[in-house]
């Protein structure tokens, strides 16, 4: 077994024994289950009220049930994104930082293992942990979706892939930053950069793209800024769900469509791959420069 594999293997063993990841996973699993069961109960109450004559006169009961189902799937996507981020922060804050902080890195780096092998092993372990946890949560979400019938499997798959792509970027960013600074500070810095700065830039860029903001200067500025920050991947399912809900609501929901980010294009996916490569390189550079 070469160095990178040994590092990946024992980092995974360590991650599997860390309570913080277990807690995040349990919260995620219970959250998705609670969301599904809660909405199912709401769905049942509304259905029974409809039968008792409480249905809004202008809404078809079948369409209303479909609306609840779509709402559930939208919430599930949102929940997966949030729990995915929590898990990415949990892995990113611990996978390398604790070796450096505890002094374990002193013994590890004195062995005949290169910093490339160390970085590769850590990235492989972190990705494997992220994929396993997100995979289990996605399977749970799929099972919970059976409560509402079926037919939205592809939407879930697309959304899960987008969530995994986004959480990978956050995790790599936190891993790289935590090699240079305290892991809590690294997590806060990553949150501000990725979720606030990049998020605001992408949001304003979407508004200029959809014509809500008409200023040419603002459009030019945010076109440039947009290609300087990581792009959150968005599956087409998000927009499809909102459009389906709006179609059920009729005129009342049309304003919601403008705020929905468009599905990622091939350019966004290529940019995401580039950002992942840059972050892996940054992480390697941080590990290589690190004295222990």
């Amino acid at each position, binding site marked *: 077994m070469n160095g990178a594999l040994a590092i990946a293997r024992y980092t995974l*063993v360590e991650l599997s024994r860390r309570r913080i990841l277990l807690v995040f996973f349990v919260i995620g699993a219970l959250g998705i289950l609670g969301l599904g069961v809660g909405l199912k109960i709401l769905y049942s109450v509304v259905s029974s009220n409809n039968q008792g004559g409480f249905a809004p006169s202008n809404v078809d009961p079948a369409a209303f049930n479909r609306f609840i189902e779509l709402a559930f799937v939208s919430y599930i996507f949102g929940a997966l994104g949030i729990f995915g981020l929590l898990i990415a922060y949990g892995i990113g804050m611990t996978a390398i930082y604790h070796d450096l902080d505890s*002094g374990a890195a002193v013994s590890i780096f*004195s062995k005949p*293992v290169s910093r490339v092998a160390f970085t590769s092993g850590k990235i492989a372990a972190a990705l494997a942990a992220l994929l396993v946890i997100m995979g289990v949560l996605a399977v749970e979400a799929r099972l919970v979706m059976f409560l509402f019938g079926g037919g939205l499997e592809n939407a879930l798959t697309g959304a899960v892939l987008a969530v995994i792509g986004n959480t990978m970027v956050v995790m790599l960013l936190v891993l790289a930053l935590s090699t240079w600074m305290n892991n809590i500070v690294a997590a806060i810095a990553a949150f501000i950069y990725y979720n606030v700065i990049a998020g605001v830039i992408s949001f304003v860029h979407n508004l200029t793209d959809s014509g809500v903001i008409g200023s040419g200067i603002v459009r030019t500025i945010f076109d440039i800024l947009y290609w300087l920050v990581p792009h959150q991947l968005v599956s087409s399912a998000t927009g499809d769900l909102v459009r389906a809900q709006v179609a059920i609501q009729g005129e009342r929901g049309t304003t919601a469509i403008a705020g929905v980010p468009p599905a990622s294009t091939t350019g966004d996916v290529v940019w995401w791959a580039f950002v992942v490569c840059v972050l892996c390189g940054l992480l390697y550079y941080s590990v290589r420069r690190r004295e222990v």
Partner: protein
Amino acid sequence: MAGVVSVDGLRKRYRSRDPWAVDGVTFALEPGQAFGLLGPNGAGKSTVVKIIAGLLRPDEGKVELFGSDPGNPAARKDLGFAPEDPDFPKFLRAAEVLDYFASLLGLDEQERKRRIPETLEFAGLDKERRQVRQFSKGMKQRLGIAQAILGRPKLLILDEPTADLDPLGRRDVRALIDQLKDSGVAVLLNSHLLSEVELVCDTVAIMAKGRVLKEGTMAEVVPQGKNLEDVFVELVEANAPPRDQLPSFITERNKS
């Protein structure tokens, strides 16, 4: 035979505005030699051994480990390093830590199965099933020495190896050093325990403020009628500003 370690004009400081932590240190280590690096706290001993182990980069001077740059992983193949205050991945058990490090050393499964139980037994950790986070400092120190000898090194660096060990543990470490020296392994011992250094080392260097004050064989450094502690105290005090023996609030109570 090629030298094990060669340090020539080594200088290192942690920040540009700091004084030199290591300032012009030069020495060499040959196979089968036990070299003691002595000095008060902050003398720069740990910095020197960390540079030899490839953990820190020198600012000036040249360091070679088995003829190569210590930053090159291949140069560290025959190095065993037991750091001061050793720590390990906290959620692993002792056997897992050794398996992890044996894998990093490139030992195959058969060799790992042979060496790990014996090493654990030597370290007195063979019956220990708890995770490292539940270990005492002494147990971590034992594990630190265990992982350092696991690869059957040609150079063993021991940085304050007995600081947290009980008398039996210290005796075991002395026996280990003697055994390794006899088999041609070079040992670099960094310790405050001068009596221990006197027992096991052939050559010593006394450092203070990053500089080597005196270096040579034990006979050269310690004149007849004196011991290593006398020489150490004389040298270090001659190179340090005078300081009060006790805080005034202690002496005040003695007077009253």
